[in-house]
């Protein structure tokens, strides 16, 4: 093994990859949320459809989106490998499970939360992305400013009118919120970035970020289910 693969496959190397891919996904979610909030604009989906069209036809966004798929996959695969190794490190468990005041529920359940998010991502991609990109299933067209484009807005709206789908979205976003409530600050610690001045900041920003992402993404299916727009 070369020193590079050896470093990246070490326990610390794997955590560094988790942290870097996690932080990339954290940035991605900001952009994704900003775009999705346009679903709530009261214009019959015009601004959302135009935004989705622009994103799909921007070469830079295309490259980033392939990177995104790759990073999600890498993050999930390493996460699963770590979890298997961690389980193997304690073959016989305790009769009384560990009590300590400092570790949060989220920190102890990262793999479970991650798997919920993974299932969500698969369902999410099959529902929206596969329809738009692979032409699987029904998708209509609209003309905005003389340009013919996919009517993704209607696809989303129809999906969210189903309580099972919108309910599943909301639950998944709560799982994402918990995952990030630990993951955000944990990523900095994994990278060795622990400092008296900045660690409290990472923790505060991480908590705020996880609330905003969880609430921001969850409110969209709720409001669309109720038929409320602005």
């Amino acid at each position, binding site marked *: 093994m070369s020193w590079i693969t050896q470093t990246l496959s070490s326990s*610390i190397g794997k955590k560094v990859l988790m942290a870097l891919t996690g932080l990339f996904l954290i940035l991605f979610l900001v952009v994704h949320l900003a775009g999705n909030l346009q679903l709530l604009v009261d214009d019959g989906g015009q601004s959302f459809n135009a935004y989705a069209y622009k994103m799909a036809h921007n070469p830079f966004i295309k490259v980033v989106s392939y990177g995104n798929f790759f990073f999600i996959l890498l993050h999930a695969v390493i996460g699963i490998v770590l979890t298997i190794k961690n389980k193997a490190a*304690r073959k016989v468990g305790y009769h009384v499970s*560990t*009590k300590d005041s*400092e570790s*949060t529920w989220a920190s102890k359940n990262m793999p479970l939360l991650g798997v919920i998010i993974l299932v969500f991502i698969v369902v999410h991609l099959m529902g929206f992305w596969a329809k738009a990109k692979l032409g699987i299933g029904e998708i209509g067209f609209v003309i905005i400013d003389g340009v013919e484009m996919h009517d993704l807005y209607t696809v989303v709206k129809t999906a969210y009118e189903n309580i099972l789908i919108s309910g599943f979205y909301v639950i998944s976003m709560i799982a994402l919120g918990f995952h990030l409530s630990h993951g955000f600050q944990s990523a900095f610690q*994994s990278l060795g970035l622990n400092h008296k001045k900045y660690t409290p900041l990472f923790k505060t920003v991480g908590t705020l970020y996880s609330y905003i992402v969880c609430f921001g993404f969850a409110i969209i299916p709720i409001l669309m289910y109720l038929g409320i727009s602005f």
Partner: protein
Amino acid sequence: MNITLKVWRQNGPKDKGGFETYDVKDVSPDMSFLEMFDVLNIDLEKDGKEGIHFDHDCREGICGMCSMYINGKPHGPKDAVTTCQLHMRSFKDGDTIVVEPWRAAAFPVIKDLMVDRTSFDRIMQAGGYVDVSTGGVPDANEIPIPKVVADEAMDAAQCIGCGACVAACKNASAMLFTSAKVSQLALLPQGQVERKTRVEKMVAQMEEEGFGNCTNTGACSAVCPKEISLEHIARMNREYLSAKVSSTNV
């Protein structure tokens, strides 16, 4: 006070093991947890039974040998104490106390509550030392070390290698132990010669022994009798990454 003890008994590494319950009567609140075990063992031996095996040595919180997982916490309910420094007054009359050995694949049970922690010794042998040429006694102020750095190194050096961090971690990870040892030497001038090789070798040995990875839950530091901070884990990660990038070990 009267106590009901539920203790893990296991005849040897291959034995399946199981819990045994003992009623311990007239326990003095001023006894240490280990003294309570001594009294119980004397009674057991009087009845012709084998006493409970457990590790201990200094009984003053400095050697790190005592290792009991008491009611779901390594070293019991109190913060910043070892089992030998835990007193029965920390419990109530009539309490049931469950005592288990450290549980980790890298700490196999030898007998009852005794576990084999030589995996820690091998991590130390891999790099937890400095090579010094002994000569005349050096002048006390020859090597200036800023107070803050000395304090930080001293905090790390407090680690007694008891393994409570591994016992508490949901992944049975030895990151807190290894990082305390790496930190202590990386901070001081005496540790600079082997600095890069040390962290590379110690981390490699830690993995070799089958300890888990770090999820940053903080359970290790919360139960550590010496309150070793998570900052040392971050420092070890920095040391490791910079060593991997810049050392000449290929």
